[in-house]
């Protein structure tokens, strides 16, 4: 079971987390569609703090001895997926950027010729 201190600490972090995500959506720094993922992660954190037994059950189910290992494992997988996705998006953006730069160059050339 979680101690009261730990629970308060965890709730504070989650509140802080939600403030950041909500703020990003509010100030239009993040599209609502992609904020869903971050809200989901936040809700999962709340669920696990409310019902820590769930974590014990899950770790037994997948055969990981300690809960902390399970959490580290999950966090690592999530980060891996996330960084892969960012890498993919970054590459797509780079291509679009290069394409734009090429078109700008060609247009500049056409304008100079007309002068």
């Amino acid at each position, binding site marked *: 079971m979680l101690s009261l201190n730990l629970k308060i600490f965890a709730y504070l972090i989650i509140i802080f987390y939600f403030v950041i995500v909500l703020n990003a959506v509010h100030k239009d720094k993040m599209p609502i569609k992609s904020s869903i993922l971050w809200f989901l992660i936040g809700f999962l954190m709340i669920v696990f703090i409310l019902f820590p037994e769930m974590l014990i059950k899950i770790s037994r189910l997948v055969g990981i001895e300690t809960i902390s290992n399970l959490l580290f494992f999950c966090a690592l997988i999530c980060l891996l997926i996330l960084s892969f996705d960012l890498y993919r998006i970054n590459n797509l953006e780079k291509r679009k950027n*290069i394409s734009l*730069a*090429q*078109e*700008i*160059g*060609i247009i*500049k*050339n056409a304008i100079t*010729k007309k002068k």
Partner: protein
Amino acid sequence: MKILVIVPAYNEEESIINTINNIKNYKKCKKFSIDYIVINDGSTDRTKDLLVANNINFIDLPYNLGIGAAVQTGYKYASYNDYDIAIQFDGDGQHDVNYIEKLIDPIIQNDVDIVIGSRFIDNTSDFKSTKVRQVGINMISFLIKILSGKKMMDVTSGFRAVNKKVIEIFARNYPYDFPEPITNYALIKNDFKFKEVGVSMHKRVGGTSSIKFIGSIYYMFNVCLSILLLDLNKFGRNN
């Protein structure tokens, strides 16, 4: 028949004017009309000033895109302006304009889609690159032979001519890394007709090669791997 010479230039202040003058002089003594376009790939030296001062037709890229994207800009320009043949020609003085006719001739005769200016055919060229690089080129060439069954000697040559069909493909899709060996392989794998003709190449006049000496082995390894992975890639499949 409209012919375009694409000259990518990144920090080539020492050689670019000479290269363009050679093309202009060559143009004068030929029956067919040849245009040129210099792609200034975000040079940080005086390349751009020289191009402006000498009234040279050039595309000024807003920042350094790298050799692949710079050359593709030339192909896009060729596609937009409806050119029938595009020739890649380095701005560093390595390539010899006198071979342009030899390069485009097989395309004009409608025999092939792409002609590669090769240092390793007919012993035309005195300068054949460093030993390490030659070994690398041979290995890439060997790999291509195994995978496609076709022999291509100078796979990394940046001196080549392509027809309209290939211009349109390159304008749409062109790899940014190791463009020459990858596109050469992709084209012959997809049954485009190619021909290698012997050309003479000079030691570069100015600037530094995009393939540095120490990087040669790394380059070869990367190219081989990229060629092997090409089947997974859209560029390899669609063309």
